[in-house]
């Protein structure tokens, strides 16, 4: 019996270890190549760690390429999208959570529909619509598109957070002398901060990763976001692996930071589920 238990224990740890390795290895390799000097790149191709490391690739990427521009563009686009989406989704999610009204069913149906159809279908029409408005090749155009794409999911997310806050609280505030909107702003929103953080994180990551529309809508380097910049870099200088991977590591940083931010609430949500069960 104990032998069997030790075996089960070992199998469990071994499996966990395999998953961790599988999850981290590609990222580790990215990091490894990005710090390998060019001279050693081919001679020490599949060594686990180069005999000498250097930050020359990072230096090149930051000094002599357009990546700082891409980085800045992506930061502007993702940041603005995250803030606008979270603000609008809070309002809409609050309405879905708290009001019973005739149009609610249709609004929910519309939002669900937008989650169902292939976004790639919209590539051509959106290009056609935005181009006479001068919104192609512009960060504003990208923000507009990303905001609309992310609102439905963010609304449902915020709604579920609002649903978790007892209705009594804003009723108490309304009796205390607040209008519904004041109660929403002063009582409910501060209590949804974890939800707001999670929504910000999700939307930021989604906008940071978006490729197809920015590829379609942006042509020059000036307004290119990180994915587009990296991809065009790859197709132009497809031999400079060290530099590409250094740029990749840089692109990874904000996403991982946001993940760590959400991770807490993710785990919190999981344990809350456990308590409920």
């Amino acid at each position, binding site marked *: 019996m104990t032998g069997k238990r030790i075996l089960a224990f070992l199998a469990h740890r071994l499996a966990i270890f395999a998953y961790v390795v599988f999850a981290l290895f590609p990222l580790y390799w990215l990091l490894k190549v990005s710090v390998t000097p060019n001279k050693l790149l081919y001679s020490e191709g599949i060594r686990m760690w180069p005999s000498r490391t250097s930050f020359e690739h990072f230096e090149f990427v930051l000094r002599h390429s357009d990546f700082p521009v891409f980085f800045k563009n992506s930061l502007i686009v993702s940041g603005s999208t995250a803030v606008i989406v979270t603000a609008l989704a809070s309002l809409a999610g609050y309405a879905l959570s708290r009001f019973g009204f005739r149009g609610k069913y249709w609004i929910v149906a519309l939002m669900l529909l937008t989650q169902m159809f292939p976004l790639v279908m919209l590539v051509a029409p959106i290009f056609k619509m935005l181009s006479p408005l001068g919104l192609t090749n512009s960060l504003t155009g990208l923000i507009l598109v990303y905001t609309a794409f992310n609102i439905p999911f963010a609304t449902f997310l915020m709604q579920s957070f609002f649903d978790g806050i*007892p209705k009594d609280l804003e009723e*108490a505030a309304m009796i*205390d002398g607040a209008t519904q909107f004041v109660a929403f702003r002063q009582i409910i929103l501060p209590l949804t901060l974890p939800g707001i953080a999670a929504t910000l994180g999700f939307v930021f990551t989604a906008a940071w990763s978006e490729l197809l529309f920015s590829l379609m809508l942006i042509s020059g380097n000036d307004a290119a976001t990180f994915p587009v910049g990296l991809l065009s870099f790859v197709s132009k200088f497809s031999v400079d692996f060290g530099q590409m991977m250094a740029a990749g590591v840089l692109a990874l940083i904000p996403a991982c930071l946001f993940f760590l931010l959400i991770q807490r609430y993710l785990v919190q949500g999981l344990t809350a589920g456990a308590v409920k069960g």
Partner: protein
Amino acid sequence: MASIDISAIRKSYGILPVLHGIDLEIRDGEFVVLVGPSGCGKSTLLRMIAGLEAVTSGEIRIDGKRVNDLAPKDRDIAMVFQSYALYPHMSVAKNMSYSLRLRKTPAEKIASVVAGAATKLGLDPLMERRPRALSGGQRQRVAMGRAIVREPKAFLFDEPLSNLDARLREQMRAEIKKLHQDLGATSIYVTHDQIEAMTLADRIVAMHGGIVQQVGSPLELYDNPANLFVAGFIGSPGMNFFEGRYMRSGETASFALTGGAVLPLPSTANLPDGSRATLGIRPEHVILGAEGPDAMLAKVDLVEPTGFGIIVHLTLGSVAFKAFTLDRRFLGMQGEVAVRLPVPNLHFFDEAGRKV
């Protein structure tokens, strides 16, 4: 402080009616308790007075002024919620002062009013804590403090004690009563606990199925229930009911219990001969170990000591009923016992359940 007049109030959700025309006048300074089982519409009525539910038809007046269309914030009432609804992100002091801050009350005034309320409720050492760090009873006090700092026209209580344990509930009940004696504020209190209703109310409004069953002082409802529902709801252990047939022959009458026993009645009640009726008697009025011609033999099923007294479960014919006695001789009782149902303590209800 103000009077509250409710006339012909109806409420339905879609086609589902929950309140069927409620009329109620609450005098200035009165403590009225709405009591009834869950789903009877008492909370809905309270929430309509607060302005949290729309009125389907009818009229609510506070201090003579029609408030149907006023938002909750414009009605000048305070409410204590079952969940307390304390703002989790504010300290106790901020919770209590929130309504005053919304009304742009001068800071010195807020400070003095809040301090006064805190002292009255014994909250002084807790003022900087968050609600999370308070016990149930303390939260309850903060909720009351939040209500009293406003000096509103009326206090509404929505089952405020039901989340507390039994002992704390008893204590808070007394505190609410004392507070009402101090402030003399018009109060409407919703509960499903008939003991709270009995102990707190100037007047009880017993509700069932969206209809007011009886309005009166606690003892009126206890001694003279208007119908079967009120008789059964008020009092613990509840009133015993025996179904049967009322027999009248000249000046004398009798009641034939469904189980077969016949109870002779000296005077005549206002019931037609041979009609089906229900006889009710409170457990404490059942006389155990009785002797005499009208004593009946009942089977003893179970003896429950409560410490204060003894509840005896009995069967007469096939009808189960209870007796309550303070006499400890009955603790070891077994087999059969002679019981008597004294005529002055009997209640009769006609076929429709109305008291006759």
